[in-house]
């Protein structure tokens, strides 16, 4: 039996995390080598954990379910650039190590001292939905009592450039939004049972593949596809009203319903 998901804390960030915002949580100098997407998701995680009132001592066995649309894109691009510009033999091993999806998961486990289960989902626009399914599984199988679901995405300069020349070249998969694309991150602290800090409850979570690929143009996913669903969820949580988030797009069906939680 799959549990409902109780949301005990959440945070969202558009653009890059200002370093001074980390000051209440940790020594800022420790972040000097961190990639922007890792810093962004770490700040969201810290804020969500604070909202959920999860003390550092309770983090040891917490799970991490991380969604990354195309992985650590900034580092992937740095590594490719170093091969193109400097050749294989002078390419950057640091950029290669950081380009692995898990490098972002490491930032969370290392800075937050979380040593529970950790799985990364990387499937473009369906990544966040996949991360929610994994979190639900962690809780159903009692691998942990709370899960940090996090999503972070970079901007792909190649896709952005192509889309600027023809915003609909990748229909029905991506379009170029009118505003400049920025990095986005979000974090949600979930549990299978309500805590005194629970704000929302999610139910009827569904992720499925469909045979339909075409979709109406208004449902096209913007250039940062992975964070789209997370931003929608964050919006519904902010307005504090019941919602039904449904995305049927490009061979994917994602459904989740939610409502504010009231302590009995």
């Amino acid at each position: 039996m799959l549990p409902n998901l109780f949301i005990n804390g959440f945070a969202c960030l558009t653009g890059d995390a200002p370093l001074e915002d980390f000051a209440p949580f940790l020594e800022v100098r420790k972040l000097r080598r961190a990639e922007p997407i890792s810093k962004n998701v770490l700040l969201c995680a810290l804020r969500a954990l604070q909202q959920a009132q999860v003390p550092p001592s309770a983090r040891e066995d917490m799970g991490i379910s991380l969604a990354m649309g195309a992985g650590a894109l900034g580092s992937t691009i740095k590594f490719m650039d170093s091969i193109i510009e400097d050749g294989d033999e002078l390419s950057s091993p640091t950029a290669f190590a950081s380009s692995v999806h898990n490098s972002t998961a490491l930032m969370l486990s290392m800075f937050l001292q979380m040593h529970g289960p950790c799985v990364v989902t990387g499937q473009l626009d369906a990544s966040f939905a996949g991360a929610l399914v994994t979190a639900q599984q962690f809780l159903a199988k009692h691998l942990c009592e709370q899960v940090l679901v996090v999503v972070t995405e970079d901007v792909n300069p190649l896709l952005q450039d192509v889309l600027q020349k023809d915003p609909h070249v990748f229909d029905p998969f991506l379009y170029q939004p009118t505003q400049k694309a920025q990095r986005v991150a979000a974090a949600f602290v979930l549990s299978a049972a309500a805590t005194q800090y629970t704000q929302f409850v999610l139910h009827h979570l569904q992720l499925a593949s469909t045979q339909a690929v075409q979709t109406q143009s208004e449902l096209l996913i913007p250039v940062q596809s992975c964070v789209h669903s997370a931003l929608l969820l964050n919006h519904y949580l902010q307005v504090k009203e019941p919602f039904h988030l449904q995305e049927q797009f490009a061979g994917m069906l994602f459904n989740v319903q939610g409502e504010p939680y009231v302590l009995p």
Partner: protein
Amino acid sequence: MTANKVSVAGMGCVCACGNTAACAFEGALSGNALFALPAGRVESTYTSKYPVFLVPPSEYAQKPADITFSQFFFIKAALQAFEQAGISPQQLNAKRVGVIVGASVHPSFHCFPIYRRWKTDKLLEEDITALRAYLASPLAQWVSRYFGFEGPFQTVATACASGTDAIGLAKNWIETGLCDVVLCGGTDEVTQSPYVGFIRLLVSTAQRCRPFCKTRTGINIGEGAAALLLTNAQTAKQLHLPCQGYVLGYGNACDGFHPTAPDPQGRGLQKALSFALKEAGVRAQEVAFINAHGTASQANDSAESMAFNTILPGVPVWGSKGVTGHTLGAAGAVEAVLTLQALNQQMLPATVGFTTPDEALHLIPTTANTPISARFAVSDSLAFGGCNAAIVLGGKDAA
């Protein structure tokens, strides 16, 4: 103990030591594998020096141009799994069928040649088509659609632990009632990025890898795929599916220690192993062997030895990367298939490449092909970022 457990109805494998699960296990027993310089596959100044484990070219002669090697290898392995299960994907239409695939290259932005042209020259018309194909093919979703399934899907991108995670999560999807059947496994390919990246990190070796050996000098990357068709007991009975074995336990824990090295004590791995064994209800003395991650890097083999000596002391250890190479996101799945083959044939292969015990490890892996009789085995994976995963498998006679 396995009446309500998740069983393996069929499995398939394509890798450097064989083009089916049975052939790959034959390769593991004989030590035969395609270990070669990747000049025809990878453009790099290193290709005259660093060999890798490759899928033989005859296996991908029919690969369509618009899909990646990762996609092609996985479909090949999956078709073998359906064949062994004696069922077609269409016959599963009435069931809730999920797909979980682990990989490392495909879930990344794997369009380096296009990116290079964009940076240095200009894009070709076909580059736009290729980018559209990239956007249209998140791996597990693509596999699900390929077989006409309409269930949940997940592409696991936990680097080198992805294959083990995919199988463990698939087991959980069935046990929690999310699915009746899950097609799961892992797939990966040798491309320029991981090939150059591991060399630049100084963990690749120009020699054939030597897991757990005192003279080990590093890893060889490899490629391939393995697929397993998992099912619940009710579906297996209804559809008269055969049983190749069981997935009994899954554990996962992270180190939070270092970007590219495991915790030296293997603490995350110990936790993952303990959870998997507890979930399976299997005691250390019941385990026939461990199929280790055994990459032959200094740090990996040391951390793994620490964890094994603590959680599974005295249990025989087999390292199979001397015949498969390190197939990255596919590794856990390839090793799970080889583990089930070993349990079912009651034969534990030698660790190819191992010659000299390393006193510091307090562990000597298998040195000869050896008959076994126990019904359970453990397979584990470690990944960059300190992610660890372990599964407990049972042979087909484990019921």
